[in-house]
């Protein structure tokens, strides 16, 4: 593995071994001193060309818990606003000395393009509506911690799947790990060609609710045009919102996940988000562990002193 760009093409064993390593980093993060020297002397640059709080901070925390140094880049305050090209920005940061770049970009494929320009590993922190592979790993880890396995679990991904890179990566990861995935959304928010996904389709949440082991609630993404494809937010909530009433119809051991940031009262009711069976903060915690696993896999074996 030279880069970590996509879930596509990873085997069940590839995913399983990354999750196994992540389990060990969960143990590290629970220690009184949650830090190991594995990447001492390495530098990880986080380059988020699109806004992010949790993913950027999570990667930085992961790098630091492995004793790597971090450099970060924010487009608002950089020379990009003076007209510098993406390639020049990347080569400049490379010249400063970095051992890996974590990239988020609004353009699909940007991390692949950057991986052609530099020999250091590139990690995809989310590109357009395409892939968000570390999110899929942290979601899979959270589900595996709860159920022990993903095999034969029924997972419903509810909401704006069409504009969601999380959904794309999650569907690939969950189905590769043996789960049965159903995409639940109004037709306007389903993928244009749902058949290319390894998942069933439903337009009626109430129809599938009682079968699900995992309800994966996606955010309504106004910034990607989501709000213009259904009549109103209250109507969306009425048909697809995970309300307290819908939550009460789930299996007693079913769990609720959400990648954040949440719109409370829209796709998820506040009381559901705060229920112990909503593992949303576990997802955040696990995000650090899976990013440690990926950084360790990519950097742990090279140029070590």
């Amino acid at each position, binding site marked *: 593995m030279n880069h970590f760009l996509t879930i596509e093409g990873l085997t069940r064993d590839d995913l399983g*071994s990354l999750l*196994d*390593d992540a*389990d*060990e980093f969960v*143990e*590290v993060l629970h*220690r*009184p*001193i949650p*830090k*190991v*020297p*594995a990447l001492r002397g390495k530098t990880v640059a986080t380059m988020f060309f699109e806004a992010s709080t949790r993913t950027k901070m999570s990667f930085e925390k992961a790098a630091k818990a*492995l004793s790597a140094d971090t450099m970060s880049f924010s487009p608002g305050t950089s020379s990009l606003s003076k007209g510098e090209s993406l390639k020049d920005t990347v080569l400049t940061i490379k010249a400063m000395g970095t051992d890996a770049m974590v990239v988020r970009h609004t353009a699909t494929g940007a991390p692949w393009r950057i991986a052609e320009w530099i020999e250091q590993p590139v990690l995809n922190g989310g590109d357009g509506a395409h892939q968000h592979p570390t999110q899929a790993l942290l979601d899979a880890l959270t589900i595996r911690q709860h159920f022990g396995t993903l095999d034969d679990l029924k997972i419903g991904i509810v909401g704006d799947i069409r504009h969601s890179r999380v959904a794309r990566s999650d569907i690939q990861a969950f189905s590769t790990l043996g789960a049965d995935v159903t995409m639940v959304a109004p037709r306007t928010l389903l993928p244009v060609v749902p058949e290319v996904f390894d998942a069933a389709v439903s337009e009626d949440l109430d129809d599938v609710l009682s079968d699900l082991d995992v309800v994966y609630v996606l955010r309504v993404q106004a910034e990607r045009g989501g709000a213009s494809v259904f009549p109103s937010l209250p109507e969306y909530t009425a048909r697809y919102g995970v309300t307290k009433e819908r939550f009460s119809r789930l299996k007693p051991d079913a769990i609720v996940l959400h990648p954040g940031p949440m719109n409370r009262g829209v796709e998820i009711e506040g009381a559901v988000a705060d229920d112990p069976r909503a593992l949303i903060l576990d997802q955040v915690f696990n995000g650090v562990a899976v990013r440690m696993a990926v950084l*360790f*896999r990519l950097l*742990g*074996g*090279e*140029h*070590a*002193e």
Partner: protein
Amino acid sequence: MARVMDGGDVDRAIRRIAHEVLERNRGSDDVVLLGIQTRGVPLAQRLAAALEEIEGEPVAWGSLDIGMYRDDLDRRPKRPLGATDVPVSLDGKTVVLVDDVLYTGRTIRAALDALADLGRPNRVQLAALVDRGHRELPIRPDYVGKNVPTSRDERVTVSLVERDGEDGVIIETRDPA
């Protein structure tokens, strides 16, 4: 290929080390055994069983993976991380690190770093089933199953029932071809 220990030798070595641990520490109170992944772990478990058999009291044992602490990650084949499982607080305890083969000492150096992150034992001791020499660091074992003089181009392989189906230690010459 030379067999330097068979199953009986391994058993006797573990039992002798158990007696030495008890003698040195005046019993097994406050002793915690930590096996270094991978073959140190079943050895630690067996040593714990031997101690319990003699003293009649269970002895805490766990596992330590030093994959995150090695200083030579680039020179070794990558292997998946093993479990680090420390069953009790190490503060104030006597930790006995358990490994199958003691060689350069770099694994033990890494294990000591890992220990420092996990707690503050009163003392740390080292038990190895085989000491094959060629230390590169100022590290010495407290308990040795067997001293086996080797040359650097020989390979020492420890087999344990739990992982390999049988107990034994063999020496081979590396890459005879």
